């Protein structure tokens, strides 16, 4: 499936804004992305498997907070960032 990568994480994807990934759940997809782009997962997901505060993950336009969310090959996953403060 196609995964959109936000600018802060493109240092891991050779500057690519869209990458391919696989997995039957969001957790599996993130592990697959980390295999392809080592280190990318920990910058988004902490060691207790919580999505970091300024990272948002959307599946087909709907925000997902549960890493157990099931995915299909046709799903479109967007990873976005929202930073506040100066």
């Amino acid at each position, binding site marked *: 499936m196609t995964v959109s990568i936000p600018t802060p994480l493109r240092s891991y994807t050779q500057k690519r804004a869209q990458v391919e990934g696989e997995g039957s759940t969001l957790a599996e997809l993130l592990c697959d992305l980390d295999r392809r782009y080592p280190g990318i997962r920990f910058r988004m997901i902490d*060691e207790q498997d919580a999505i970091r505060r300024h990272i948002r993950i959307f599946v087909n336009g709907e925000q997902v907070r549960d890493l157990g969310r099931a995915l299909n090959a046709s799903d479109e996953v967007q990873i976005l960032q929202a930073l506040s403060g100066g």
Partner: protein
Amino acid sequence: MKPTTGNGKSRTRRLATHRPTRAHDGGYVLLLVGTRKGAWLFHSDASRKRWRIDGPHFLGHIVHHAVLDRRDGETLLVAAKTGHLGPTVFRSTDIGKTWKEASKPPAFRKAAEGEKGRAVDHVFWLTPGHASEPNTWYAGTSPEGLFRTEDGGNTWEPVVGFNDHSMYRKWTGDEQAGTPDGPKLHSILVDPRDPAHLYLGMSGGGGGVFESVDKGADWKPLNAGCRCDFLPDPYPEFGQDPHCVQLHPLAPDVLYQQNHCGIYRMERPQARWERIGENMPKAVGDIGFPIVLHPRDPNTAWVFPMDGSTVWPRVSVNGKAAAYVTRNAGKTWKRLDAGLPQEQAWFTVLRQAMTADAHDPVGLYFGTTTGDLWAGTNEGAKWSCIARHLPHIYSVEAAEISG
């Protein structure tokens, strides 16, 4: 009740030194500057008068600490995160020309079912390990965690003896209290005589200085004599706020700390802090963040006082910037303000943001929360500004690079 102080005689006796005392012989100084928006490297010329700027590195990253490994003179670790992204460590073995990210950055263990998990928010402090353990480093984090690498910073493991100590929650206290940017584990010190002998400091809802004699397997508080103005019992066993603790590299029995409640010194095997800041001018006080030791003389230390009166503005006292030095283990202090602004200077020098090189005379360096970098290459007798308009400076470290 005022605590009893240490034996005054001990300060005047000749200190056993760890190895022969000598000044650094040649080469140049590299300053490593960590800021709220990236890292910069400043290379001096041989006279330490002119500086070449290399940076920014990691522009936009929050860099709490950048440290060069004095054991090999080439490994550089940077503790970084961004507003969005989790904490990590970047490594360079060519003084910043190329960087690699740690493949396993410091992280707490996964919590057991029903247990409240901890997640590292940022890596706050980096300390190279003992000379006999070449690729070992320690990291201190927020919230309070101690981590160790044995491969030069590539993979990090929790120091279980601290992070899962039965007293951890009592020692670290209320997670919501403490420093605005989160509670910190800092001032990780390794005894140059013994890799198993460690100290650390914590500032947060709890805190204090802690000591291990078994390489971190067990820890004990080391806070007797150190005051807590902010607790009902002003002399508790732990809970103090040691802003910065230093151990003298040539006389490792000598410890100094700049605490939230004064400047202290301890000489082991004593286990009681003596408040040497009582000898600072009363109008200035003895509150600040950093304390810097002379690389060869264990009786000399520098501090950078801040205003800890009324509502704690934590800026230069009366807007007049100054360092203070003691040359006699804290009996007397001298103001060092030549070249520094003496009106309307409202900055703060944070705990990692002041340091010394190993030259003779010693060069002192500090960075301000207003983004200025200052040097006093004659032991602070006169200061000059070597960079302005950097972001908010968190850390300044000096390293000797062989000529």
